[in-house]
């Protein structure tokens, strides 16, 4: 565990970048430092690998002051990923990744074999091994940056705004990839970002820092959204934090209805049997949703697709959250969300009212857990 113990960083001109900051960074989890510019998040990160030395206080790694070991030994035991990747343009991708193993004295051949493994792990085509950084896109370069940081298999990974310089689509891909890698490797990751959505998506714990380098709140993202410590945190979280909090509520328990689902080949009897439903979900022959139709306007045997209403975006119960389910329900003019299985076949429908009830139930559950924890 990394323990930041009442650390202050004051520069010679009197600027205080970090002010008596204390944090306990849990092992094998992603801890995100987030805040506006000038909040000292990068300085804090750089104090962990001693790129910046604190003016006061100390940082402990597994109980030992990080100043106890030679600075380069410390740094080689921590992966370091920065914005724009910072690749060595004169080295091939493979040799870039092999940098730290080579520093640690691993023979060249072995280091390159390890680098090739890592390329695969971060989702880089092995054909890129002999290329130079300028031949790669920004997103690919950032993957190389992550692979390079992981090459010596360090227990700790420090990431300083690693995905800030790439476009939103690529960024989402990199974030998903990081979560997948973290599932496999379980590193202790300290991640700096100014993007609160990134913090909430990636963080197991999120530390919100305010200008002047003071800690505003340190909590799991769901708690941050449900109970911001003060107006600053609430403001920083931005609009619709209620909706965003739904990302942490699972959709598995939603009660689905299957009655309003009819195939595109449904006969008159079938349609008549469901005539009391306000809308029917019409699916193709494979069971994939096509759209909503009003029962009295549907023709038996064949359905004119252009008369169907949009069914929004379907959700996968269990995989997706209540946020996705609610989004699907509000997107469709019918007010119903469509649940599909992994192959996109409709497995049920659910109304806004039912989703609303599920949200209230989730709130009650959270409140009960909080009470139980408080009682302990």
């Amino acid at each position, binding site marked *: 565990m990394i323990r930041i113990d009442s650390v202050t960083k004051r520069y010679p001109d009197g600027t205080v970048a970090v002010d008596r900051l204390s944090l306990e960074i849990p092992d094998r989890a992603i801890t995100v430092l987030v805040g506006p510019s000038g909040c000292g998040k990068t300085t804090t990160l750089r104090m962990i690998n001693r790129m910046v030395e604190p003016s006061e206080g100390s940082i402990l790694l597994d109980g030992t002051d990080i100043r106890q070991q030679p600075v380069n030994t410390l*740094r080689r035991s921590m992966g*370091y990923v920065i914005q*724009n*990747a*910072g690749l060595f*343009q004169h080295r091939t991708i493979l040799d870039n990744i092999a*940098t730290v193993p080579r520093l640690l004295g691993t023979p060249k051949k072995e280091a390159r074999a390890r680098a090739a493994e890592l390329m695969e792990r971060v989702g880089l085509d092995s054909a890129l091994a002999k290329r*130079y950084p300028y031949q790669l896109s920004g997103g690919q370069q950032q993957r190389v*940056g992550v692979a390079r940081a992981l090459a010596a298999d360090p227990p700790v990974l420090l990431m300083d705004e690693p995905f800030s310089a790439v476009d939103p689509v690529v960024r989402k891909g990199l974030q998903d990839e990081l979560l997948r890698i973290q599932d496999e490797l379980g590193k202790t990751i300290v991640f700096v970002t100014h993007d609160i959505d990134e913090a909430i998506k990636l963080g197991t714990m999120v530390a919100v820092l305010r200008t002047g380098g003071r800690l505003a709140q340190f909590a799991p993202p769901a708690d941050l959204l449900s109970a911001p410590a003060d107006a600053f945190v609430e403001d920083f979280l931005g609009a619709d934090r209620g909706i965003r909090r739904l990302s942490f509520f699972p959709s598995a328990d939603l009660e689905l209805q299957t009655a309003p689902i009819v195939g595109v080949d449904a006969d008159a009897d079938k349609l008549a049997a469901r005539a009391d439903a306000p809308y029917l979900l019409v699916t193709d022959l494979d069971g994939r949703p096509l759209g909503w139709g009003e029962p009295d306007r549907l023709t038996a045997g064949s359905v004119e697709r252009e008369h169907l209403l949009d069914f929004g975006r379907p959700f996968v119960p269990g995989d997706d959250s209540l946020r996705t389910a609610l989004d699907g329900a509000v997107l469709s003019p019918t007010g119903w969300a469509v649940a599909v299985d992994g192959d996109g076949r409709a497995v049920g429908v659910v109304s806004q009212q039912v989703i609303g009830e599920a949200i209230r139930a989730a709130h009650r559950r959270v409140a009960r857990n909080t009470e139980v924890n408080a009682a302990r």
Partner: protein
Amino acid sequence: MNVLDFARAFFSDGAHWHGYDGIPTRFTEHLTFSVEALLIAAAIGLPVGLLTGHYGRGGNVLALIATAGRALPSFGLLVLMFIWSGFGTLPVMIPLVVLAVPPILVTTYEAIRSVDPSPVDAARGMGMPETRVLFQVEVPVALPLVLSGLRTAAIQIVSTATIAAYVSLGGLGRYIIDGLYQKNYDKVVGGATLVAGLALATLVVFWALSRLTVSPGVRRSG
């Protein structure tokens, strides 16, 4: 007679191809001065340029030295050194080195300064020692510019080494100065052609050197 005729007359005269005043001897002398002067200048300019560039200090002092170095007339310096220390290699070497140090020093400093700071930060953050940061991260990327500084210095040395003949040292300048004195224009044009040829050869050598030493990753992106 035109210049080409002078040159033809000079190079076709068999007497110019052997002996102590023959082309091979003079050429070797010229090349030796030039290489020695370049090595001394590089031994001064490169380390100072690399260190000041790496630590980012002393830029103003360097600019001052560079301006002063460029303003010094090499011919004047040669005469001064000759009066001071008499015949010999020293009065020739000093002006050549003084001429060559500023381009090497200043270009090397600028080359290291202009290296993108983020790979340098990444290298330090990964636990690379400072000497490796300099030689394995900064220098490979700065190399094309560093070589261009050396090339400028080398060309200047090759052309200026001609004046070494003025203080009775050999080299290709011998032909020019003796030729002028003897009103033998074959010699003057022949000598000048050889100096120009050597300067061009220097360019080719540096081009080949940069092909060999600069990483394709740097060549293409820089």
